[in-house]
């Protein structure tokens, strides 16, 4: 019974949003004051973890979290000394620009897998030299920008049934079932060289629920705390 109580405690205990940021090797220059930043609207996909553990996408949660993160990012940039303009990726899926946005998604996922994940690539060991290549200059020219800032949010929330099932299975001594979780990453790309100059991953605390404005604000505060902007 002690084990069950301990599990219940873990379930409802509050923890802080944790972040883990990385800067490009060999001191890539920080954006100068007045640098023009292209803020790419966040790409967010959230799902509900059904009782038996299937991830079911929830379009309404994704939409509200997307809007909340976007508003919080804009507010965060407004406080800093940079000019910024926004890009809605839905308006730029065709041609070269669309390819660059997809390239960033692929590079971002690779960074998550190889610089943060369990997989250790020999060529990336203790190095952070990811780049999208100089082809990104097209993005800078098109939108008059020096840097692009991307944000991604992914995650799942347990359904009520899932939580009950988790506690029940724990009481039966059948082990722990995953309850879902949310994370977001942001990356800052130099639009002259293509280098990823800064990358940050945040895992949500229960108080940072990006589906409401306050939670999204907490998320963005954590992510942008030490951003070189």
């Amino acid at each position, binding site marked *: 019974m002690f084990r069950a109580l301990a599990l219940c405690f873990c379930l409802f205990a509050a923890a802080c949003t944790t972040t883990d940021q990385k800067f490009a090797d060999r001191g890539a220059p920080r954006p100068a004051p007045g640098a023009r930043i292209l803020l790419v609207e966040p790409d967010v996909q959230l799902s509900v973890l*059904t*009782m*038996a553990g299937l991830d079911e996408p929830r379009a309404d949660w994704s939409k509200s979290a997307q809007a909340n993160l976007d508003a919080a990012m804009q507010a965060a940039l407004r406080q800093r000394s940079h000019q910024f303009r926004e890009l809605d990726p839905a308006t730029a899926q065709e041609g070269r620009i669309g390819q660059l946005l997809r390239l960033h998604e692929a590079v971002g996922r690779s960074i998550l897998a190889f610089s943060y994940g369990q997989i250790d690539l020999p060529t990336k060991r203790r190095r952070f030299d990811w780049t999208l290549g100089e082809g990104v200059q097209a993005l800078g020219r098109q939108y008059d920008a020096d840097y692009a800032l991307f944000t991604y949010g992914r995650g799942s929330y347990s359904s009520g049934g899932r939580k009950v099932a988790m506690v029940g299975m724990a009481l039966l001594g059948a082990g722990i079932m995953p309850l879902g979780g949310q994370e977001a990453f942001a990356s800052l790309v130099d639009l002259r060289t293509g280098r990823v100059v800064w990358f940050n991953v945040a895992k949500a605390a229960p108080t940072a629920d990006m589906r409401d404005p306050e939670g999204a604000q907490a998320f963005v505060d954590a992510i942008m705390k030490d951003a070189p902007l």
Partner: protein
Amino acid sequence: MTPARRLVAALLVALLAGQSAPVLAQQRAPGARPADNTDEGGIWAAMDKAEIDARASADVNRDPQLNAYVKGVFCKLAPEYCGDVRIYVMDRPYYNAAMAPNGYMEVWSGTLLRARSEDELAFVLGHEVTHYAENHSLQTWRAMKNRAAAFLGVQVGAALLGAAAARSAGTAEGARAALDTAEGVSNVIYLGTIASLFRFSRDNETEADRLGMQRAVSAGYAADTGVGMFKALQAETKASQFFRVRNSERRLNIFGSHPLTAERLKQMETLAPMATPDDPADRRAYRARIRPHLAAWIRDDMRRKDFGQSLHLLDQLAADGEDAGILGFYKGEAYRLRRETGDLERARAAYQAASAHPDAPVQTWRELGEAHRKAGDKAAARGAFTTYLERAPQAEDRWLVEATLAKL
């Protein structure tokens, strides 16, 4: 087992049983978009993203006439969904078509290349729109959720059994054996769950065949199209040069995710027992539609490196005597690339035959020259290479052919 444990287990099982959502039986209303806070809305949003990626794919065939033609046939079959469904022709050499729940459809070029008339295209499109109209994706998802919940219910039972046995076993070895047994039960149950998923989609496939055929017939297409189509696909499977493909009629072959079972053919034969008389004019009209892409699609097909199937396909395409130059050239190419005993002679004969037709591609003479040269017929090789240079004075490989000519 203590009463408390029994109560927990009973509550869990009751909760799991209450999970089952009703499976939709009625047809989808045209123009309806599901609410964002439903399971269906979530699936649509995920598919919208998949569609954006597909639209940017290099495989998309961007010929407006071809796309408009396929869409036109679709709208004849399903006028009510004409505004809901977006069709993308993908240049992929496999017999496949796919329908996403949000109304985005892919029709692969391997399907268009193998269809012999518009009737076959209509049958395929009717099949796909049935998946949409009958909400098959949502059904599959909900059935999967129910099965996953049922599976968890059995896990609850298995965990109970295992833990109870472990406690009573007394020795560590006995406990281990009991736990292994419980795990074995779980695995069997798990495999059973997976198998029933395929079973379910097979039911959907036969329903899509039946209702798709009804749509095609109402739009004026032949009723027995499916029979001829399935037989042709079976014949092509048998023509493969690979033993494993010949013997795996159902899966892991070019017919992709659609299992090609005798059972589906049988259903079509029952539904359409009378053969419709063949009309060569229908086949000619359809060929005219796909002719601009014929060579490119055949080239794609040969990249699969199953020359047994490619040669079979070329024979089928040549049945009416049209496009003899293009088809003859690629027949030569198939033999040249296959390189079995006697293939050099076969390739030479095929190029020779193709060169007599006005639609033979200019490369026919270069390859014919090369085949003559390899066979030791220098005079014929010189003639063919010279014809090649006359017909393609700007050819990129002109210098190479000239050098070969100089050595002959």
